[in-house]
């Protein structure tokens, strides 16, 4: 008799263990990418004239645990060639499905900056080897917080609205960054062959940019020799130079057409970090392809332009412009730093996708860039993308 509760507990544990195991699904995706530039004078996206197979290669495994119809937990491990395939958890969240239309997720989720942000690494889902870098060069891992997704249908349109709130503390383009009060939305509308998307994200952003920290410290050093109002003005100006708890925003618009086998995609984005020596950036791409059975030839043009934050020159405190900061005046130093943020990149790309399997594609692309700072560079890449 005394054994019965034990037996019950064991049986229950066994049953629930089985049920749990049955409800965990593993899925994943992988890309194997090789590339090289045409000559030793060309370098682009980490490639040179010796063939490289690890820059863009990756493999990811996702575990989805479904507790019941409404509750699930998801974890995605990503191993990138560039990081010696060391697995990193890029997504980790639990989801509560309120209804067919509404779901709420909490955890580490990717910020939906762009149309392709969320599935940027699932390259099987698009036709490029990689998304156009002038637009998509700005990307970093997920935020920690909440995501609300609302799906509905009206008048023949499928609508998906995502609202996010959270924070980020980690690396942004290999610099330490903190993003607070990250708030945003992404709205995608789809009807037959037409897809429209708009997104907007804003936050309070701090990024540790070594050169700007040094410049800011230099101006504070100047202030230490001044008195009264000028010292205060210089200290406040020093804070204006570095991106520290500054208001940042990112907006994007996208259009997709898939009609009679003609594929047209365009996206425009714009972002800025106010009150800092980071440039306001505008970028767009347009892409035209044609689906001929399993083959899709594709041509893409993309451009990115960063405007120098000239307004900072107007903010140099009165009477401080001629103070010497090292060998030059403060005004000269700031003018040089402002000018240095200005960049312009143009990109042309021709390539194709070939679906050799229902879950795998072979791609090849020739990329030509023209950058104000680094000149003209070419790159040939080929890839095998798959989902499993």
């Amino acid at each position: 008799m005394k054994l019965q509760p034990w037996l019950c507990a064991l049986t229950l544990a066994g049953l629930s263990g089985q049920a749990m195991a049955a409800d965990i699904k593993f899925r994943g995706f992988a890309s194997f990418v090789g590339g090289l530039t045409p000559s030793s004078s060309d370098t682009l996206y980490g490639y040179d004239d010796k063939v490289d197979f690890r820059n863009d290669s990756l493999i990811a495994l996702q575990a989805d645990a479904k507790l019941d119809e409404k509750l699930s937990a998801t974890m995605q491990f990503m191993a990138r060639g560039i990081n010696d395939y060391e697995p990193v958890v890029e997504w980790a969240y639990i989801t509560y499905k309120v209804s067919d239309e509404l779901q709420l997720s909490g955890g580490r989720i990717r910020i939906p900056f762009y149309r392709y942000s969320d599935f940027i690494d699932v390259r099987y889902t698009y036709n490029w080897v990689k998304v156009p870098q002038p637009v998509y060069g700005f990307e970093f891992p997920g935020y920690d917080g909440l995501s609300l997704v609302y799906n509905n249908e009206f008048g023949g349109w499928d609508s998906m609205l995502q609202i996010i709130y959270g924070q980020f503390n980690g690396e942004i383009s290999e610099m330490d960054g903190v993003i607070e009060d990250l708030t945003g939305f992404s709205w995608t509308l789809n009807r037959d062959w037409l897809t429209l998307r708009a997104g907007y994200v804003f936050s309070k952003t701090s990024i540790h940019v070594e050169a700007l920290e040094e410049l800011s410290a230099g101006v504070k050093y100047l202030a230490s020799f001044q008195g009264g109002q000028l010292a205060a003005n210089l200290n406040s100006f020093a804070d204006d130079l570095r991106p520290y708890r500054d208001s940042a925003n990112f907006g994007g618009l996208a259009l997709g057409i898939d009609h009679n086998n003609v594929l047209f995609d365009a996206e425009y984005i714009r972002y800025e970090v106010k009150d800092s020596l980071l440039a306001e950036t505008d970028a767009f791409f347009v892409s035209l392809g044609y689906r001929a059975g399993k083959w899709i030839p594709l041509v893409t043009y993309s451009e990115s332009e960063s405007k120098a934050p000239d307004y900072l020159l107007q903010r140099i405190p009165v009477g401080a412009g001629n103070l010497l900061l090292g060998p030059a005046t403060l005004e000269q130093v700031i003018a040089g730093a402002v000018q240095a943020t200005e960049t312009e990149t143009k990109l042309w790309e021709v390539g194709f996708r070939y679906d050799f399997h229902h879950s795998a594609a072979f791609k090849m692309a020739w990329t030509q860039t023209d950058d104000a700072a680094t000149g003209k560079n070419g790159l040939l890449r080929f890839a095998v993308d798959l989902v499993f």
Partner: protein
Amino acid sequence: MKILILMLSVLFGANAFADVVVIVHPSNNNTITQADLEPLFMVKKSTFADGSKATPYYLVADDAARNLFDDKVLGKSSGQLKAYWSKLVFTGKGTPPAELANSAEAVAKVATDPTAIAYVSKGAVSSAVKVVLSLQ
């Protein structure tokens, strides 16, 4: 030669499509029209007209009935459908229906699951399931 292959594929395709039927459990009394299929199989709706739960099943990607259903009803190639679900699965925004190995397995599944709905090749149908639509 090319024309012959094209003609054969058209003939074969047309015949095979006429042989794809949509089945549910015999206890399911909902009227199902062709317009109901896309929302159910794209998991935009998870209930039948009477409000009861609907569980759609796919066949595996290289099944002929699957290819025809994807093309004619969902308006996508199997590859496009794979891309569609990949976008949702890897971003936590949706889960595709389970895939069954073949029509016989789908018939067996639907026979035991009152919430199930599946498409199968007509030849596999038994009296244990109810045919609600024959696709034209």
